[in-house]
């Protein structure tokens, strides 16, 4: 019975991913049927960004979604105690406790979108730039992880933190579009406060339009800094948790 459930969930997730992607692509097709560029991005460039957005999102769902949204539950029911005793890093254990392979096919579809749009743009495959793009994607995922992790860590103090999934949806609401689409104040927010620009737009921009090396370095700096903050804040929270429960 469980295996049937597993397969059904799997199928549902793929259906979810495909229908979202289908609608997204259809939307872009309709939009670009009327204009050649939107905020300086052509149809293929914008679709590549969209594919990248879906790709990073699906990786997030696969590795971190369940685990990070479970952190408030661990806090509420005191389930850290078992994990603390283990010899591995607590943060590592908590973050990767359960991996959902359901979203991986969707990540593959997204990669397919990225590849097709890239070839449609007729760009050459330079190993160097592809490598940097891959690093920027990992960097973006790390920033996304850090942001959500910091918010989840808040549950050590505000125990009833339910709506983490809502937070994720809210944060990434504008992520599928190039950040240049927005005017202030959203433009400012998406670059400096919730750096959607760094997570999603920059890797795509690097690949198809070029990104100044200063921005590339800044992206990695932001990635490292946010990861360090998330790490330190989590262990600060654990200390508080320990002192509270003893």
């Amino acid at each position, binding site marked *: 019975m469980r295996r049937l459930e597993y397969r*059904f969930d799997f199928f*549902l997730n793929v*259906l*979810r991913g495909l*229908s*979202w992607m289908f*609608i997204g692509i*259809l*939307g872009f097709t*309709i*939009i670009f049927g*009327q*204009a050649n560029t*939107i*905020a300086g991005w052509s149809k293929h460039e914008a679709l590549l960004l969209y594919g990248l957005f879906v790709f990073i999102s699906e990786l997030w769902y696969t590795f971190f979604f369940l685990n990070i949204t479970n952190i408030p539950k661990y806090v509420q029911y005191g389930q850290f105690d078992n994990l603390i005793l283990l010899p591995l890093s607590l943060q590592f254990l908590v973050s990767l406790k359960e991996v959902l392979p359901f979203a991986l096919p969707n990540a593959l579809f997204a990669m397919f979108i990225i590849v097709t749009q890239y070839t449609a743009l007729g760009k050459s495959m330079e190993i160097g730039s592809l490598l940097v793009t891959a690093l920027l994607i990992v960097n973006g995922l790390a920033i996304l992880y850090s942001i959500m992790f910091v918010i989840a860590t808040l549950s050590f103090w505000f125990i009833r*933190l*339910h*709506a983490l999934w*809502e*937070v994720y*949806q*809210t944060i990434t*609401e*504008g992520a599928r*579009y190039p950040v240049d*689409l*927005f*005017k202030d104040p*959203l433009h400012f927010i998406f670059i400096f406060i919730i750096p959607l620009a760094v997570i999603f737009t920059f890797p795509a921009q690097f690949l198809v339009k070029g990104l100044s090396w200063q921005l590339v370095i800044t992206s990695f700096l932001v990635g490292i800094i946010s990861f360090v903050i998330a790490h330190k804040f989590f262990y600060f929270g654990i200390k508080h948790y320990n002192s509270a429960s003893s």
Partner: protein
Amino acid sequence: MSLLISFSILALNTTIVPAANAVKKYLQIIKGTWAEYMEYRLSFVLWRVRMVMQLLVAYFLWSAIFTDKQQLFGYTQSMMLTYVLFVNVVRTIVGGTRTQDIGTMIQSGALSNYLIRPLNFFRFAISRDIGDKTLNAFCAMGEFFLLFVLFRPEFYLQTNITTIGASIIALFLSVIMFFEFSLLLSFLGFWTNEIWAPRFISFVLMEFLGGVLFPLDILPKALFSLAQALPFGYFIYFPIKVYLGQLSTPDMIGGFSISAFWAVFFWYLVHVTWIRGLRAYTAEGK
């Protein structure tokens, strides 16, 4: 004379007083819904922030598309931006509902608690929704005015009284239709555990074929006809179109007829599934 007095007292006791008590009872439920929201303040605020974000994204997107155009798909920029601003308000009023909780109630067996109470379950659900919709409508109006003040779009203000009246009626029909539709989705819980999936699919269909992401008449003819045959287009798109005054009279009459049809049809389905569902529910010994 005394007969008249006693008759009046009897009439009062059997009609007005129970009615007043019933109203008080359901008013409590409405207030209870507001109190629930105040408890889950964070979720509520986050949800509103997300709605505003979606609105802003749509707003910026359409502004960008219209940068070098006067008209697109028969819409001017101001008409399109008005449409986008209204989607948030209409979607909140129509879509704000607690009926999805009913699905969970059925699955967990909590429905039994409500069945043994001295209240009509449907009136209970309607009261909860009135509480939900009033609170959300209040917020949506606030967001609307805030964004209007911030961005000062060229807003299309309807001046024709009959049109305004017609759009209010259309909105009312949408509220009823969606309430019934959501109930149906929840009632699936009588027979299956997978109630999340159909609801999710209906969200996707609503976004696309309901007029949330874009006004439906920009779709190519074939898709537009499909959208008009399905109920989703009458949840959001139709009331806004009526307000914008862009519908010809035959279109309006056609739209109202189809809305009314769906409202009645869904009510019938709700009635049937509720009876059958309860039978299945009690058979399971809940």
